[in-house]
Each structure stands twice: as structure tokens, then as C-alpha cells.
């Protein structure tokens, strides 16, 4: 086994819709894939990233050159299969080393028919995207004709205006955990496992519902809290989910949203959402908690964000802000017991600094309960 069997690999190409084509070597499944090319700066946690349902429709380019170092493991999955459309690396590693690994990353990719390319000057492409914004791209190890690949990249639909959550939501409602704590109803737009585990670890009873479940059905389960999950795609293309979020607010059941869920809760309250030029994808993003004054290093993965000037005091208060570009990272709603966070307090991968947000939500549930007990 060689750590980079590049001598033995077949050629592959990565073509961008703007006509950029780079040649590399095929990794994983031999085939072709298309998606929006984005990059992630996390230096570990590749498998968590590759299985994060929020990345559906996106080709993931890892900026750290060596990917595959510690192999692949069941424990590192955020979904039961890869969710990214493809993988781009600089120096893919096949000869992994970690006793927790079940198999090599490449074997795992092959089993799941995930297409990848390695030997790519990823830094150059990162700089390219940074200047021009994210682009659609095609990876192929079966078609190596530049013109054909560029045409395919151009023909691929843009992420803006694309609804993707329906592809990754659960088909049936299911119980994830039973505990002594609050009952949490999860709207699944592509929920990461570690979000569910985060609730479970806090003793919650968790039931996961398909994205299109009417709120009345969810309320019939008698939840103490509603959770709007992360997920892929453009939230503006999800009118049904926005309606649900609006109804949820009116129900006055404490509500928590992460990432896409945060954007949906915002849209439901008339807050605008826009597509960012590059987005935030990494595990080193500084977020200031404006209520408590501290800074947390957060895991982020979003290409859309809420527009700050559309937030009015009557609707919500900005609770968290990104220190790099000052974008809004968290909201506390005024008209109903709700909070929402743009990034990933469940981490996986990334730092655990923001895990307290789950506790805050549980506190909100408790407060709301005791308030309603007092009034009745």
C-alpha cells in the first residue's frame, strides 16, 4: 500500500463553468459528477464534512493538502452516506493510520460511488473562487474532453434558487432518542447526526420529522421545543418551510434553528437572505457572542446569510456576529421564544466552543414553561 498511489491512478479532470480546466488523478469512484465548487479550510474532519447533508449539490475542495490520513470510520459519519457531490484534494492519502479507522477513505468513497480528484493545485482554485465567487464545476474520470466538461459545468443549475432539502430529508418520521428531558421535534432538512446526538446527550426525547410535515402534525406529538435543522440549498426556494417556520412562531413553542433553519426562521419573520460571494466553510471562524462578550471559534458551512439591514428591533436582536466580516451569526427573536444560529454548535467537525447554545435552547424551553405555568 502506498500513501499516494499517484503512479497508478487514472487521470481525471476538473472543469469550471468559467472555462478553467485542471488535470489531476482520479480518486474514489471512476465516473463523473457536477456541483457547485466550494472550499473548506478545516484541517481535520473530512469525513464529517463529506457526510454533512448541507453539502448536497456541492463539490468539496479541501484546502488542507493531505486528506485521508486517518482513514474512514463509521463513528465520523454525519449521515449514512456521502453527501457532497465530489471531492477535490491536493494530496489524497490512501495509507492511513489510526486504530479507529474501518477502512481507507478511498475504499469508503468507492463503496459509496463518490467521485474525486487529487493532485489539484487547490490553493490556486481557492484564490480563483475567492476573487470571482463560487462556480459550478464537473469532475470526471470518464470524459476528459475539456470543451465537453465545460459545457456540462455551464449546464449545471445554479445553487441560487435551488431547493435541495427534499432530497435529504427523512422519508418517514422516526424517534431518535428517548430521555427525561424536553421533547424536541426536529424538522429535518438534512440534519447532521451530531445535532441529534447533542439533544440526546442532554436527555431530550427527539423525534425527527420529514421536511414537509404540517406543523399541526408535529404539534400533535406535543413537543416542548421545535428545531429547524441545517440543510442544503437556497432557503428562499422553500416557501413551504418558511410557512411552517411562521406558523411555529405563532404557536409560541420555543424554537431553535441552525444554519438553513436559522435562515428559514429569519425569512418567516420578514428578514431577507442573500447568497454570499464565497461563503464560510471551515472550523476556525471567530464569532462574538454579543450578549456575553466572549468569542467562540466555530464550525461554519453556509453560502447564504441573513441581511442585517432587514432586521428590525421589533422582530429580532442580533446575538452573534462574525469577527472576520461582521456578518450576522445569531438571532434572538422578539415576538416569540426563538433563537437561531447561522453556524454549527454541534461542531463535528470542529471546536466545541458553541455547544452551550443547545443548553440555552433548553433553558429557553424551561423559562417558557415556567412563564406559562405562572400565567395559567
Amino acid at each position, binding site marked *: *500500500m*502506498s*500513501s*499516494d498511489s*499517484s*503512479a497508478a491512478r487514472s487521470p481525471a479532470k476538473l472543469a469550471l463553468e468559467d472555462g478553467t480546466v485542471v488535470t489531476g488523478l482520479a480518486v474514489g469512484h471512476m465516473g463523473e459528477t457536477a456541483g457547485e465548487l466550494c*472550499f473548506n*479550510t*478545516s*484541517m*481535520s*474532519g473530512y469525513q*464529517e464534512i463529506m457526510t454533512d447533508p448541507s453539502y448536497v449539490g456541492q463539490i468539496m475542495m479541501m*484546502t*488542507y*493538502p*493531505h486528506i485521508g*490520513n*486517518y482513514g474512514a*470510520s463509521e*463513528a*465520523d459519519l454525519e449521515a449514512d452516506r456521502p453527501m457532497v457531490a465530489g471531492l477535490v484534494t*491536493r*494530496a489524497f*492519502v490512501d*495509507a*492511513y*493510520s*489510526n*486504530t*479507529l479507522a474501518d477502512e481507507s477513505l478511498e475504499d469508503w468513497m468507492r463503496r459509496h460511488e463518490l467521485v474525486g480528484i487529487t493532485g489539484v*493545485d*487547490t*490553493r*490556486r482554485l*481557492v*484564490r480563483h473562487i*475567492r476573487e470571482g465567487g463560487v462556480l459550478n464545476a464537473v469532475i470526471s474520470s470518464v470524459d476528459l474532453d475539456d470543451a465537453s466538461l465545460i459545457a456540462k459545468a455551464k449546464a449545471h443549475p445554479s445553487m441560487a434558487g435551488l431547493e435541495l432539502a427534499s432530497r435529504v430529508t427523512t422519508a418517514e418520521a422516526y424517534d431518535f432518542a428517548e430521555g427525561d428531558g424536553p421533547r424536541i421535534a426536529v424538522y429535518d432538512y438534512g440534519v447532521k447526526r451530531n445535532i441529534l446526538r447533542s439533544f440526546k446527550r442532554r436527555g431530550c426525547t427527539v423525534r425527527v420529522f420529514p421536511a414537509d410535515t404540517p406543523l399541526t402534525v408535529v404539534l400533535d406529538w406535543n413537543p416542548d421545543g421545535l428545531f429547524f435543522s441545517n440543510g442544503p440549498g437556497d432557503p428562499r426556494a422553500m416557501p413551504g418551510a418558511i410557512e411552517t417556520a411562521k406558523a411555529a412562531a405563532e404557536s409560541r413553542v420555543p424554537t431553535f434553528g441552525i444554519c438553513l433553519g436559522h435562515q428559514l426562521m429569519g425569512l418567516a419573520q420578514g428578514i431577507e437572505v442573500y447568497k454570499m460571494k*464565497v461563503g464560510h466553510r*471551515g*472550523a*476556525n*471562524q*471567530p464569532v*462574538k457572542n454579543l450578549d456575553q*462578550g*466572549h*468569542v467562540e*471559534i466555530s464550525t461554519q458551512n453556509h453560502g447564504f446569510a441573513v441581511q442585517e439591514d432587514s432586521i428590525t428591533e421589533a422582530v429580532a436582536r442580533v446575538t452573534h456576529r462574525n*469577527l*472576520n*466580516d461582521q456578518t450576522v451569526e445569531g438571532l434572538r427573536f422578539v415576538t416569540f421564544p426563538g433563537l437561531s444560529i447561522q453556524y454549527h454548535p454541534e*461542531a*463535528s*467537525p*470542529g*471546536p*466545541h466552543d458553541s455547544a452551550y447554545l443547545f443548553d440555552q435552547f433548553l433553558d429557553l424551553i424551561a423559562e417558557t414553561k415556567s412563564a406559562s405555568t405562572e400565567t395559567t
Partner: protein
Amino acid sequence: MPKRTDIQKILLIGSGPIVIGQACEFDYSGSQASKALRAEGYEVALVNSNPATIMTDPVMADTVYLQELTPKSIKQIVEKERPDAVLPTMGGQTALNLAEVLHEERYWEKMGVDVIGVDIDAIRITEDRQRFRDLMESIGLDQARSRVAKSLLEANEIAQELGGGLGFQPIVIRPSFTMGGAGGGIVWNAEEFDKKVTRGLELSPIHEVLIEECLFGWKEYELELLRDSAENVIIICSIENLDPMGVHTGDSVTVAPQQTLTDKQFQQMRDAAIKAMRSIGTFAGGCNIQFAFDPKTGRMVVIEINPRVSRSSALASKATGYPIAKVAARLAVGYTLDELPNEVTGTTSACFEPALDYVVTKVPRFNFEKFEGVDEELTTQMKAVGEAMAIGRTFTESLQKAWQSLELGYAGLGADRDPDHRTIVRERLKKSYWDRTLQIRNAFTHGASVEEIADVTQVDPWFLHQIHDLVETEREVSKLSLHELEADLLLRVKQHGFSDRQIAFLLKDDVTENDVRARRKALGLTPTYRVVDTCAGEFAAETPYFYSTYDQGENESEVTDREKVLILGSGPNRIGQGIEFDYSCVHGVLAAREMGYEALMINCNPETVSTDFDVADKLYFEPVFWERVLDVIEHEKPAGVILQLGGQTALKLANGFQEHGIHIFGTPYPKMDLAEDRGKFSAILEELEIPFPEYGMAQTVDEAVDVAEGIGYPILIRPSYVLGGQGMRIAINKEEVSGYVADILKMLPENDILLDLFLENAIEVDCDVIFDGDELEVCGILQHIEPAGVHSGDSTAVLPPYSLSDEIQDTIRDYAERIARRLEIQGLMNVQFAIKDETVYVIEANPRASRTVPFIAKATGIPYAAIGTKVMLGEKLATFRERGELESTLEGFAVKEPVFSWTKFPEVPKELGPEMKSTGEAIAFVADLTDEHFSRPYEMRNLYLSR
């Protein structure tokens, strides 16, 4: 919180002379801290006894005290300066210890001085093993099982307990409160136990040692953290040691970022580190935490915490681009992380964790050849004298570049000579030695498997597979002739970091490095330069900090149309070529900038100020290795290069510059060569009617004996073209001559041997001069206290001379001038003299900045390194003279005191001879010769003399 306004003046304590375990990384951190504090408007008073530091330059602080670092001297300074605060975290353990002593005395409190950047009560915990243990236990962090012993008897009982009573299990001993782990190590068997424990008890100032469960074979990690007064903590860098536990991290090959932990394992370590740092009292600043990790069970234990900036934080700063010391200094005066910008991007926050899109490898540099009888095995006690760091897009590229940086004659990780025989390789791999990565590579060439090597070395298979890849690539190349080498393979080979010289060695046909270079360029393959930007390209970076790689995308180092000068750095520190040369390089850079040039720096030593991205207009963090230097030159096309500042490293490349038609600023190459070539130089001395000791040259043992018999005894024997007296010996008969010469030829084959008549009991003198073609400036004449025979670097030297007549001093000046004129020196030169029976002999001349330039500059207050550089670039001495810039401020005498690291090598006799052994130096200003800084060494001048 914004910065504090209740303090105006801050005292910064340096780390003193360079010793093993505490080197020039503290000049880097001290300089950064001083810059940052002054930029914030604070007045900085600084104390350090090490003259060869940038931090003690008058421009670095408002007031500089070149004084010894003792409680007494600190008190004198405090009483004079009346600072509001003291920052003791930038000067290593030395500064912290001083701060602690004065804290114990309640001195700071009495004087109203606030100790910032550290919580003194809390750091006692990190230094007291038992209290540290208790603290870690209280916050739920696992540790190696251990107990403190205050006697040998107690130590025996504990060892029995930890070993489970079944014979002897290896255990670790760590004496409390010793620097760089002095006296510590693994005890493998019962026989060594008593000896090592007793020694540890002796070395510990409080006579206690920790007896600890042996984590040998576990993996070792380090995290570099910053914490602010609002309790925000960020991890700047993770570092994974290639060498498993058992080897001091300063002696280990280390890699950043960590490579083999899953994210969940890494986050567990991050959480533990943050918890640990927050538990250490209340302070704002930097911190380093070491962990051991058992790959089999996943058990992770905390090893130690250093609540200050360290060697590792200097490495982490250079590895990530994040200026830890600078930010730590700002945090110490009250800022919180979210208030500070990331200076690298200029647009984002300093409160983040750098993301790397490259791999950094640090390889330590040792000087075992200097210490006869030294135990070369690496243990928990640090033995390295320096280190080189390399950046590549892959681990293999960075590892090969690191080996090219070491300046031990390697063109990469092997593949430039035949590997050692398999039996030697097997022996070397059984224990931890400095060349482990090379021997792993050699083992693969002999057919060993990853499993076998992992079993013997405990090195993580990930690294072994990577090195195995290199050997596979070598095999592909070795099947080919040059003309068969196609672009795709050559690109892959270059991306693995192979140098053209290695490729030339590997190819079937007999080709040279130049042939490979020509072929490579014909195939369109040249390196590109990438920015170390802290953020993996996510944001645009403003800093001009570059490394080379063979990714064929764009070049991020845009060449300007300004006139450029390339200054070659001095590479990893070693005995004989240390911080003094970095000092001169930094001054060279600043002088070139002042003269309007764009100053480009190339160096690979992460500990230094010269590799601070703030210093040069552009920093190329690259090996000072011919191919890499030439690549930079071809990319930048500078007007010329400056070689005189980087010691022997840069000078060794002079020939290549000459051949490639690259301009050398200052003394022309053929003249430099005259000085370096003993035969030609002696002919010149003869022509100039300057006396020199009778000498001869030889290439074999027999020739050497013949020469010696002709000249007479005692006779000084040494290889040519070496620095720091490497391999130098004095022989008194022909048996000794043949023995010594055989040794030298074994160590340095194909080197000419020089034999000089040794002038017994002569007085030695060092003289540094600047010559501009017209006139000579004598920077200083240093008279040694020890008699000839002790290496000049190990001698106590006095400026000005204390017992030389005016006549002799005039002769010295006269001879120096004759040589300078004859060699057409333009810039700096050092001449060594011996005076016997009123005759002045010239021993040697070095056409470059010497080790004593910074000392003289500090003693006289004249920036000679900068002036020398400006003269190289065409300025005349008259200009400086007219401006009054050559007026010495020295009153009385300045004494240069050598400092040794003997405690690191207890098995080596404390003998001084022609081979340099000191690691650092201190300066003392004395009014007259009754001062004990003069009288003590004077009385002891023959004590340690050996041959």
C-alpha cells in the same frame, strides 16, 4: 477591554546568553513584544545580558540595559527606571525565574510594579510537578502516573510501585525546576537508576525528582494557545512529533498541523488544552501544552504546560504566520483578542485559529561532534543546538526541504549518496538518534517494511508510508537516464521535494545537478512561491512571507521593478554559527532598506528575528541551499546578493554565484577565496611581509606526518573551510598527528588538512574591520584572556585590549589594513592574531562578518553590521565619520564572556581547546580590571585548558 492606561512604562526581561534549551527564539519574542508595546505607546525598558540580540539594539526599546540577569541587577534597573509593569514571559525560564524570585521577596509589590502576562502564583503550579498533577486531576485531565521523590530511597519505592514489582520496567525521571529538562531521562534498567536519580536530585535546585510511568512509544503532540483577560482561548497551532514520546520535543522532528488524529480525537485534545490553560490562574498571554497519546487505546495524558512564549511558539508563529509574541504582549496590556486585527490579512480578526494549506516540518540540528564521548542517544533532556523548519505543500516536500536546510551536506532525505550498510541502519533505528528519518529512508532502500520499522521505532505508520513513497519515487527515477525524464514524472518528483542534486545522483547516467536543472527548465518546471497567510487562501493576505512549491499554478510573489538585494541567512543555529550571524543579517536587511533597496531575506531558521515577516521587504522561508537560493534569484533577479553576513553558510555558496554570473555585493569572490585558501593566503602574507606561524597542508595521514615533522611541535591540526574550529586539535608528536588526521578524514573526507605551528602561551587577538577601498575602520581589537589554544569563541575577550602596547596595537591595525587592501575587501573582515615575544602573527582572515561584530557594536554603540552592509552596497566610511557615527561610547572595558551548556552533556569533560564548545555569550561593562568579570576569568584562564 482596551489597553490599560494606568501603566506607561514596562520592563521587559530577556533570556540572557544562548544555552541549549533556551536560544534565540527569545530574541524573536522579545523583539516582537517590544515592537508591539512601543507601537501601543508604552515606554519600554529592556534588560538582557546577551549582546548578540536584536532586542538589545538601541532602536528596539526606549532604554536598553545590557546587564547580567540577576535579582540585584533587575532591582537596580527598577529603582532607576521606576516601571509601572514588568513583562517576564518573553525571556524564557530565565526571565520567569527572576520574576518569581522578586515576587517571593514581595519586591514588585513594594515597588508598585505590576507583573503582567503571567500569574506568578499560578506558574509555580506548572513548575511544581506535584501541584500541577493535583490541579490537572482536579479538572479531570488524565496524566502519567507518577510521584515526587526527595531521596534515592523514596525514588526506589516509587519505581517498584509503578513497575508493578515485576522486575524493572522503564521509568522516567524529571528533576524539578531545571531548564530544558536538564537531568531528566528514561531509565531503562536497574543499573542506571541510582546514578540518574542521584544526578537529578543534585541538579534540581529544590532536590526533588519526579518518578513517572514511562510513556515510551506513545505519540506526542503540542498545542500553542493564546488566552485573553476575557477568558477567550484560541489554538494557534497543533504540532505532531514524528518521534514518539521519550525524545524531548526540542530534539524531535515535528510536523504542523497534526496529521494522524481524527477530528474527534483532536477536539478532545483542544478541549483539554483550553480547560488546562484556564485552570492556570488568571493571566493573558501565550501558553504551550504538551500531550501524550496512546494510539492503541486512545488514552490521552497531559505532559506539561509552559505559561509563556517558548521555542514552540516561535515555531508556531513561523509555521502559521500568526505573530504569537506580538499578540501576547498586547493581551498582557489588557486588549482582548477580538479587539486585535489579524495583521497578515489586515481585514480579519486576530481572534481565530489559523488554517494551513501546507505542511511544516521542523528538524533539529545537533553538534555532537564537538563533544568527545557524548551520548548521542536522544532522551527527554534536550541536546539540539538549533533547528531548521521547512514548508511544503506535502509532508514529503517539507521533510526533504528540511534536510536540505540542515547544512550537513545533505541534498534531501538521502538519495544523494549510498545509504549506510543495513547492519548500521538496523543499529541506528533501535534507539532514538538525530538521523532517524534518514535511517528510516535507508531501511526502506534495504527492503524493510513499514510494519518492521514501526515495530522498532514506534514512529506512526503514516509518516513511514510517506517516507516509503519517497523511496518508491527514487526507484522510478533510478531506472531512467536524463533524457528519458519526462515532465509529468519530473513534476511529481519535484513535488516530493527532491533536489536536482538528488535527481542527478539517482539517474542512471552520470549527470550533474546543473544538467538536471537545465532539463527541468527546458521542460518548463520551476517552483512557484506561495504566501503563508494564516487562512488557507480564504482571505487575501498582505504579508510578504513566501515558501516555494512545485504546484504549477500562479506565483503569489509578484516581482516589483525596484532594485533588490538578496541577503542570505545563516541557517540553523549551531555552535560557532549562532545568533550573532542572525543579528548581522537583520542589520544587513535594515541597512539595505535604508539605502532604498528592496531587501529580500532567505533563511530557514524559525527561531530568529530574520525570519520574522516584519523584517525584510520579502521573506523567503527556504533552505539556504544552492538550488533553492538560485531559484529565488532567478525569480526575483536581484541586483546582487550579500554573503558576508550569514557566516560560513552563505560564503560556501559564493563559488556558485561566481559561476552563474550573479553579482556579489562587497568583497569580490576571487579575493574571498584567497582568504579562505590557506596556501594562497600564506603567499599573500609573505608578500605583505606579515609574520605567520609556519604551516603546511596535507591530504593524507602520511603527508600530514611528514609536514608535522618538518614544522615541529606542538602543532595545530584542522580541516580547511570549517567554522567554529570543527575537528581542530593540537598534537605534540607524530602518533597524535596520525590519529587526529585519520579522525578528521573520516568525518570530513576529501577535506584538506591544515597544520600550523602552535604558538604556545601566545596572546590571542580578534580584530574586526570594515574597509571601503580607501580607508579602514577598526571596529574593535579584542584581547583574549585565555591563552592561544582555546577557540576564540570560547575565550573571554576584552575590548579594548588590556595589556597590549600601543605599538602592538598599531601593528595589528597596520597588518589588518595591508590585508584588507590586498584582498580588496569591501565591507567586513575579521582577522585573528597571535602575539608571542612581541611579534604579531596573523593566524587567519575571514572576509565576512564575524561572531564578534554584534558584541563590538553593543560595546561601542556603533552599528557596525549595518555600516558594513552599507559599505558593501557602495557607501564610504568617510560619510559615517563625518556624521559622527563612528564615535565609540565605550568607557572602561567591555568583556565578552562565553557561556556553555555543559549540564546537557554530563558525560563530556569540561575542557576547552581549539574546538569551539560554547553556545552563547554575555557582555559585561567594567570600569577597570579589578572588576570580577575580568579578574575571575583571568585567574582561571588555564583551568579548563586542554589540547
